[in-house]
């Protein structure tokens, strides 16, 4: 395989994981925190409209990304160019980035809704955002390490 094709599939591995990661976090947020725990509110009455727009865009994007990411995964498999490590790196990176955005910009800055309606919500915020940073960190390591191995079983 030539260098260009190699790069193309290397980045497709990353994108497939990234999209699926974004979708996965969106899905967990919706099912676990909205529907099962009922910690998140559908919509706070005080939410400014920019929060609504951001929520709508990210919700739609994560919905599409989950399915699109999985089809990309299937595409990598049928071409036999899947790098599991790089893919998981992408998943963690996507999940972490979206969770960090959700936990800082959407929850705090745009005040879409809080993680939970209790006192000391900052403890929840801290755990939420630290978890996001850890995911980004581990995802980054996986991606970099899959890059070092130039011939990652393509």
């Amino acid at each position, binding site marked *: *395989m030539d260098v260009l094709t190699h790069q193309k599939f290397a980045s497709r591995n990353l994108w497939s994981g990234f999209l699926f990661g974004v979708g996965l976090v969106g899905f967990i947020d919706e099912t676990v925190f909205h529907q099962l725990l009922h910690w998140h509110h559908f*919509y706070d009455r005080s939410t400014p409209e920019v929060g*609504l727009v951001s929520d*709508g865009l990210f*919700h739609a994007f994560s*919905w599409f990304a989950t399915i*699109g990411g999985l*089809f990309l995964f299937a595409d990598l498999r*049928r071409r036999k160019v899947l790098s599991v490590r790089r893919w998981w790196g992408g998943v963690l990176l996507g999940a972490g980035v979206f969770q960090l955005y959700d936990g800082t910009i959407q929850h705090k800055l745009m005040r879409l809704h809080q993680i939970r309606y209790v006192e000391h919500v900052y403890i929840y915020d801290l755990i939420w955002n630290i978890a996001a940073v850890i995911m980004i960190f581990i995802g980054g390591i996986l991606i970099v390490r899959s890059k070092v191995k130039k011939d990652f079983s393509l």
Partner: protein
Amino acid sequence: MNHVHALSSVFSLNIVIFIIAIVLYITAALITNRTYRSWPRSRYFFWIAGVLITALPIIGPLANLAHLDFKAHMVGHLLLGMLAPLLLVLAAPMTLIMRTLPLALARQLSRILKSKLIRFLSDPLIAAFLNIGGLYILYLTDLYMWMQQSMLLHSIVYLHVFFAGYLFTISMIYIDQPAHRTSYVYRAVVFVFALASHGILAKYLYVHPPTGVPSSQSESGSILMYYGGDAIEIVIITILCYQWFRATRPSFAEGI
């Protein structure tokens, strides 16, 4: 008394239209089976289900409830504007029409489908505007209140919701051979923005009910619109991605 009379005649006219739609489809499929390959069974199911689901918000108890309750109206909206068009599109009616019509007529129809007007209307962006934009006008102006008072306006809104939903669906997924194709990336991007606009409007209605709707009804209607929309859109996304996946399958020439 006159009003009731008018209502019942419109009611029976609708039933006749729905029955004709089902009978025509099945007859056409059975007749053309003699000359072409057998029409897939699943498509009969999609068509019948699609027609029945189109009928639900128009005749029967749901239609009556929708006048009184915003949540019932929203169920009707999801069925008429999203689920029914999707099912009908899956039944590939245009393909069936093409193989049923005599050659000369089929050619004429295909010329119409290739026209600039159809190209314009079936462009994903235009179809999305007609579809979602129509909803913004319906719920954010007094149109929703007016349509409850005028039979004519009510029918026009329902027709628009249905046809805009159908147009949007055929602009995204290709079951019938489309006269004008657009790229997968373009469709995907337009789709994400259309779905986002739908969700944003749904949440907005949570606290800003249309004129004349009590807030308790707008809250449950809003949640229904948000998640109901998701549930149906996921099918369209999957079909779109699957068609994309099929179209980009590696050829032997690529040597992988």
